[in-house]
């Protein structure tokens, strides 16, 4: 039976506190690790070494970066929209942290378990873009504004195929509880049942996280630094943290929906779960360091004219097959 934190810890406030601490710790450590991993992986793909000086294999490089960013001056430019500008880095960070709590990492454990887990994850993920738009608008910088506009348009476009692909899975599993979906995957993962759905989901997920080749909201060579052009110090670090945590969330969803979550032979559940998650993240890094960036209109065309029809067709086929089989 699936246990959640509230089952293990009787006091509800203590449970909340513990959950928050665990998630914050995981998010931070994970982001530190991922940034280091990204720098190392990209370096290895580019005939470099990447960080080597700070710590073994340069592992403390990102820690040092964060400490530095913490101690940097926080600049608030002139003529900004103060509430939006100051709130955005916090708002961007909150939903991704909430989203993290919903995944069962083992047959018997999840921090939080609800019967609408999947809906919640997508709802939280959608909030991130409000924060990005707040940042872009509040910065009073044209590059930031352009980046924010791109981000919103991109988010709306890619959220649809993302959810449509996930919807097909929920139809098969007949549940929106993530633990149920994982359990429903029996001995073979849904990627075999839903290969097109899995592909659509993964492409959309990469786009959702604003990673190359879909990184147009912060397209470095075009928009300087996009929506976070005007952010310095820790505020910028929070955007960074959110981006990397977001990667983990979409990979966790993909793992749970298509790769059988914690299921796997021999090794314990969490190992399988995180192994799959980090493999998917590695593929994201791989994509980023291989492909050039799409243009904005091509990105939108791809979403509206390719992914969404394909996802709808996939959904239709799934529904038909389910109806016929039942």
């Amino acid at each position, binding site marked *: 039976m699936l246990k959640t934190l509230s089952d293990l810890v009787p006091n509800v406030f203590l449970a909340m506190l513990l959950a928050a601490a665990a998630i914050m710790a995981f998010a931070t450590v994970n982001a530190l690790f991922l940034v280091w991993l990204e720098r190392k992986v990209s370096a290895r793909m580019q005939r470099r070494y990447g960080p080597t000086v700070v710590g073994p294999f340069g592992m403390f490089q990102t820690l040092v970066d964060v400490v530095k960013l913490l101690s940097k001056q926080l600049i608030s430019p002139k003529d900004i929209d103060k509430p939006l500008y100051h709130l955005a880095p916090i708002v961007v960070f909150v939903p991704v942290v909430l989203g993290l709590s919903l995944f069962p990492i083992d047959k018997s454990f999840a921090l939080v378990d609800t019967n609408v887990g999947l809906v919640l994850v997508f709802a939280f993920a959608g909030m991130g873009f409000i924060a990005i738009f707040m940042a872009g608008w509040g910065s009073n910088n044209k590059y930031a504004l352009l980046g924010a506009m791109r981000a919103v348009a991109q988010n709306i476009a890619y959220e649809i195929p993302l959810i449509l692909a996930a919807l097909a899975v929920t139809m098969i599993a007949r549940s929106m509880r993530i633990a149920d979906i994982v359990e429903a995957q029996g001995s073979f993962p849904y990627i075999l049942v839903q290969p097109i759905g899995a592909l659509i989901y993964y492409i959309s997920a990469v786009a959702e996280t604003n990673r190359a080749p879909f990184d147009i909201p912060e397209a470095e060579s075009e928009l300087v630094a996009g929506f976070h052009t005007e952010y310095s110090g820790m505020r910028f670090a929070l955007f960074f943290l959110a981006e990397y945590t977001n990667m983990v969330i979409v990979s966790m969803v993909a793992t749970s929906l298509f790769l059988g979550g914690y299921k796997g032979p021999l090794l314990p559940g969490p190992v399988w779960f995180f192994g799959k998650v980090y493999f998917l993240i590695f593929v994201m890094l791989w994509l980023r360091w*291989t492909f050039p960036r*799409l243009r904005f209109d091509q990105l939108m065309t791809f979403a509206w004219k390719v992914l969404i029809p394909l996802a709808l067709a996939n959904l239709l086929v799934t529904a038909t097959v389910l109806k016929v089989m039942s």
Partner: protein
Amino acid sequence: MTSDLHKPGAALAAGTSADPWATPPADPDGETYYLNMGPQHPSMHGVLRLLLELRGEEIVKCEPIIGYAHRAHEKMAENRNYMMFLPNTSRVDYLSGMIYNIAYCQAVEKMLAIEVPERAEHIRVIVCELNRVSSHLLWFGTFLLDLGGITPFLYSFDDREQILSILDRVTGSRLTYCYGRFGGVTEDVDKKFLDETTAFLARLRGRMAEYHALVTDNVIFRSRCEGVGVIDRETAIEYGVTGPTLRAAGVPYDVRRAEPYGIYDRFEFDIPTASGADNLARYYVRVAEMEQSMRIIEQAIAKIPDGPIMPEKALKRFKPDVGEHYFAVESARGQFGIYIVSDGSDVPFRIKLRTPSFSNLACMPDVLRGTMVADTIAILGSIDIVLPEVDR
């Protein structure tokens, strides 16, 4: 006419120029807005500033603002003798510095009717073509960087380093070569240089296959390049566009063929052209040009004779006759012309550098109209400009 701005610190005290961020007033209808791209922008190839009038992301009007890298090369030329201008030449266009350096030597040699020894001529061809390959490699990397692909940039830099270390051994510098002298070159090449060059060519050929797999056949790359940034023959004539940008429009104009200089008339090579006149065509032309440069280098290595690398009598101080000379070479970016006017003294009366990037950049307002912001970067990257060369 005169100003005290040239006195050190005067401009600083005066608070320097007008508001550097001054943009035109906003459009009254509120349909368009201005975006100031540069001079500090990751894709402005140094210090170009584009003043863009945008509607959404579409460019309504574009005005390049140059001069942020103006270093008074031409004024310096008028203030020092012919020999002393030599180090300046490779700093005009630092990516094909060798070609510029040698071109200046050749121009002065033409003025003075100096014979260059055969061996020196061959060495010049080899180093110039190596420099051209290294310049194109850097372009390859930065173009992909502008498109958002980061890894090809590092790959091409890796290969470029090989060329630099080959040239470094002979010339003593990596970027701003001062290898040419009036009448020859400073340093003879040894067998190791030739062997290393041959080995590098073999290596690069293998690497080109990798590049094609990584970049040329990439769907995203092609969709970003095909049909984008068309600079056709008419536009080229209108603006005097030369080099690979022109050849991508299907015009087989290459100074090495049109007005052969040095010993280029002795080598077999093709002038690659393409018909699309777009980013992809320029990409193809440059990649093909690297191949042709490699062919030229191979022939030069095969033919290089023994002998002196400088004329018997080295030139120290000289005064060319009164007159004017125009000498053109094909640099990595197009036709580089040196117009020297001599008044009979040991100091040039006037040296005008006709730099290809200046003309190639001038067509931007026309080409960029109606494109997206992302295309602006791609097009700018594809025509391969070097800002200090534009500003001189």
